[in-house]
């Protein structure tokens, strides 16, 4: 990987110069505690600026309006975005990654033409309708029902944990079309218009005070059959394309942002300690800082292995799961150290940096939000199951139905 990246030094300089010239220097000031509508407006403005600069859709093919960057170029770009402390484009995450990952592999030409250009204008926001109250890590047990009536599907059920659904125009929806089939065989994948009659949202208030997620209630929502993505009942395979569309770049960005955020921990450690002197002069604090520092180095090396595999097209093993566990637990310990350094004063409610990294320096909110990372996208426990069974080749856990028989 090193050689490929070295060859891209001129490209890196270009990106860096562009970011220096175009990233508003005061964006953090403006987005600190910003109301929702200002946050959305700024996300849209920044995305459009990135598009104008040629960096908004780096992984999209040129024929669909993207930059068509090589994988190595994308690595460089995400490193530079993270290092510049640019906003995270969370509003567009699903639209930019999951939508093309899904439509380019499974969508019809009409679906691609209808949605892909619209996403790149910045006007079309997407959300995801996968998880349900009784189907989280065990996604395949989802129950939302879609019944075919002529050329529409009528959908009833409930989705949850849908980030930014309250801003979204469309939803990538999984629903059960054949209840008689085995769990993964009877699921279909749809494009759902969020303005369709019967779609109701309820925001979920998080323990940090914010509300990024929503419940989505679906009552007799009609979805035209032309909005089916992939084969009817074949949605599970389509969903695998959705979920594998990131190839390690998201976690690269998060890892680099964490390395940048480490400076904030060091700044917090300059505060006066309870026994006089600075916190950073305390051996215990120094060791905790070193522990985080060494683990960040290890994380970056694990990520590099993943990126190298992706770049060379080698088949990926369970590295993404190992890295997911590693990142989320490191983030928890990183932000917990921030809370320690901040003391009681750091636990008063403060304004939140909208669109910021997972390390904002408002440590209590960062710490509480870090708990979401060990759960979302497949909990740490599920990731460990995956590594144990597919990576270490340990025997599968007995099915719950048989669990009582041994004793």
């Amino acid at each position, binding site marked *: 990987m*090193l050689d490929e990246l070295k060859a891209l030094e001129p490209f890196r300089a270009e990106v860096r110069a562009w970011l220096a010239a175009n990233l508003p220097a005061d964006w953090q000031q403006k987005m600190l505690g910003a109301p929702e509508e200002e946050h959305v407006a700024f996300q849209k403005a920044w995305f459009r600026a990135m598009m104008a600069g040629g960096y908004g859709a780096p992984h999209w093919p040129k024929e669909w309006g993207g930059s068509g960057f090589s994988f190595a170029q994308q690595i460089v770009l995400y490193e530079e975005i993270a290092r510049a402390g640019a906003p995270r484009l969370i509003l567009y995450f699903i639209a930019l990654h999951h939508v093309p990952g899904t439509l380019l592999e499974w969508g019809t030409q009409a679906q691609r033409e209808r949605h892909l250009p619209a996403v790149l204008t910045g006007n079309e926001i997407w959300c995801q309708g996968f998880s349900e109250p009784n189907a989280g890590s065990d996604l395949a047990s989802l129950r939302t029902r879609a019944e075919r009536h002529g050329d529409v599907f009528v959908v009833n059920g409930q989705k949850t944990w849908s980030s930014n659904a309250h801003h979204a125009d469309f939803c990538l929806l999984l629903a059960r079309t054949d209840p008689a089939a085995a769990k993964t065989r009877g699921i279909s994948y749809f494009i759902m218009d969020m303005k369709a009659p019967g779609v109701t949202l309820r925001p979920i208030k998080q323990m940090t005070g914010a509300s990024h997620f929503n419940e989505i209630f679906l009552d007799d929502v009609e979805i035209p059959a032309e909005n089916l993505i992939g084969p009817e009942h074949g949605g599970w395979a389509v969903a695998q394309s959705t979920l594998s569309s990131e190839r390690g770049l998201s976690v690269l960005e998060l890892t680099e942002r964490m390395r940048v955020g480490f400076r904030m921990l060091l700044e917090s450690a300059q505060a006066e300690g309870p026994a006089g002197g600075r916190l950073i002069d305390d051996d215990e604090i120094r060791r905790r800082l070193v522990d985080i520092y060494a683990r960040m180095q290890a994380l970056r090396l*694990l990520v590099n292995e993943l990126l190298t595999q992706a770049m060379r097209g080698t088949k990926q093993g369970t590295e993404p799961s190992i890295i997911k566990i590693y990142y989320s637990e490191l983030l928890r310990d990183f932000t917990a150290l921030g809370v320690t350094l901040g003391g009681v004063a750091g636990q008063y409610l403060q304004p939140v940096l909208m669109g910021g990294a997972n390390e904002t320096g408002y440590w209590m909110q960062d710490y509480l939000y870090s708990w979401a990372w060990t759960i979302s996208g497949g909990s740490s426990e599920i990731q460990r199951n995956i590594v144990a069974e597919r990576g270490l080749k*340990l025997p599968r*856990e007995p099915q719950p139905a048989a669990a009582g028989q041994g004793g």
Partner: protein
Amino acid sequence: MDFQLSEDQEALVSALHSILQDHAELPQAERFGYSCFNAELQGILADSGFLSAAREIGPIEAALVTIETARLPVLVETAATGLVAPMVLGEAIEGPVALIDGKAMDKAHRNLPIARTALVDLGEDVAVLAIEPADVEPVESVLAFPYGRFRKAPDLAKARRLPGAGEALRQWWRVALAAEVAGAAQAAIAFTIDYVKQREVFGRPVGSFQSVQHRLVQCHAHAQSCYYLALRAAWSGDPVDADCAASFAQQGVQRLLFDLHQFHGGMGVTTEHLLHFWLYRIRALQAEAGGVHRIGLEIANRLWPDAPAAAQRMAQAG
């Protein structure tokens, strides 16, 4: 950077494996001992050039040799002879080599009974001592290295001295230590995985229980991270990387020890299996070259040097 091995490195590791596979089994007579040094294999590795990799190819290759040999239940001393000594001296010295903390000359030292040469960390400088077997008294221990102490304190004033080499010695000692922990940990984990797949309780394999699986995954991720950090430190030659690799490796030792023995059930507290040949090597390395605490603080002092109070305390602690 990444650690996909190059073709040459693959070839080196594969050639090494073809030698090591003949020694992968522990001789039956040695099974109940605490450590088993294989002098014959040590000789073969020296004669076939594997201990000269650091000088002839580079430190990454020497680290790979250390990692691969650390996977064996038998002991060969490749870390100090093949990696540390050549990086500090830039020349070949007679191995096996023992690495010694000059502030604790009278204590027992790892590998001293098998060593032909010792490198002594004197702080600023390094002393190079030729070792006569008659000068060393073996010390019994449960650790899976031979330990011994000097019958009479060696005269360091007469020894060959490498001025200013202390820092380099500690740096490469730490890289070697991390590499050795990585290889031994990976082997111990693989051994344990084999066991939990076969051993059944309540009518199913021990390894089918999540409480076992999840902890094995943590062990695996830790060992893999040790491996990358060790190779990175060998690659960069940066002292902070070396310290990070060593302190990270040492930090995880307790957990590895506890979990891997635990998963062997009652057998785990006997010598009826091979586990201790790896894990009690790791345990010995846990406290070396400063140990987690001192190495951690040294990293902090390198990274954040403007902490006068801490630096002063470090200096006082020596």
